[in-house]
């Protein structure tokens, strides 16, 4: 599982959803959590910060979570950052597109603390295998 000291960025245009994800992360022991309202603000924060985990909503105005994921994966400094996409819409073609774009896990809303924890564990294993750690 991710070290609870990992710096996490939570991205969602809905304040309520940012609060839900942040609360679950805090319950799981994470302490260094930042928030952004859309893909553009998230991109600016990733340029300034050294995030070890990104949890982003997909469907946001301005810059979507998928756009943000693609920018992260295309950036040499950020490309290996573990990235989870959260969405209420998990149709097959969307899942396929997210996987193709390099997402590490896909969280479908609504979700419980247990299901987010399970997705984090799964993403950690996938990232560890990818990074050879």
């Amino acid at each position, binding site marked *: 599982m991710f070290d609870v000291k990992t710096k996490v960025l939570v991205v969602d245009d*809905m*304040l*309520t*959803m940012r*609060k*839900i994800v942040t*609360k679950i992360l805090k319950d799981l022991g994470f302490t260094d959590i930042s928030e952004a309202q859309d893909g553009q603000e998230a991109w600016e924060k990733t340029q300034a910060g050294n995030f070890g985990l990104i949890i982003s909503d997909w*469907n946001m*105005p301005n810059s979507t979570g998928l756009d943000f994921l693609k920018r992260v994966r295309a950036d040499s400094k950020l490309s290996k950052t573990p990235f989870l996409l959260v*969405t*209420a*819409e*998990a*149709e097959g073609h969307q899942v396929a597109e997210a996987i193709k774009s390099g997402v590490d896990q896909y969280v479908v*809303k*609504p*979700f*419980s603390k247990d299901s987010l924890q399970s997705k984090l564990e799964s993403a950690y294993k996938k990232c560890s295998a990818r990074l050879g750690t």
Partner: protein
Amino acid sequence: MSKTAFIVEKNEGYTVVRLEGELDFTHCKIFEEAIDGISNNANAHVLINCESVGTIPKDWLRGILRINLNLKKDGKVLKLFHVNPALMNYFKKEGIDTTFKIAKDLRDALTDLGLAPKRTLDTEFINPFLTATIHVLKVQAETDAKPGPISVKKASDQHSGDVSGIIGIISETFNGSVVISFPEATFLKVISKMLGEEYTKIDKDIIDGAGELTNMIFGQAKIVLNEKGYGIKTAIPSVVSGKNHIMSAMTKGPKVVVPFESSAGNFFVEICLSN
């Protein structure tokens, strides 16, 4: 090879081909083979979505013309839709603006062909929203909810709430909306459960929770309905608040109202659909 230049979506009686990316020679051959394969194996009209292209290279045009002729021989139709002004000017310049049948959008193309699916506000359409409402409140807010009897909303009926989430249901062939509307007390209990702390008044910190719940309900229902071919597109919810406000659907079609009882209090869901 560059990015795929077309996406094929097979449907009952018709196939939609979306042109996008680089229309190069290699993809042209693949495109022609793919469409020939569809034409030979299914009794389907071919509808080409040109939304993403401003021009079509000559080898692609030749391919589309050949496919058009072959389909005609078999009594089938090829139509282009979402032809933007730049592409239409290009067709005119090439003298082929009357060669193809052109429709404004997929809905028009399907209507012309007598294939536009008529969607009705029936249990097949309504039930996924009710199931999703129960599921979303249970998982995200630990709230048990039970729907009451579904009633058709008359013009004189007015259902008021204090906080409402609304989202448009948009597809190529029909439109609609779904509203979830809470009295203040119910909303505060639901949000308090969702966020794990008690809230006693509605403020900017929690109000978008109504939109998020609507978004989740819409998303869950969309998965089920799109598996049945409804083709509902992604949308972003809005929130309306104000004591005893009355929501009015954005579309003019029939509406149903479903009252819910829950462990957090009563609320209602309104669904509207217009072909």
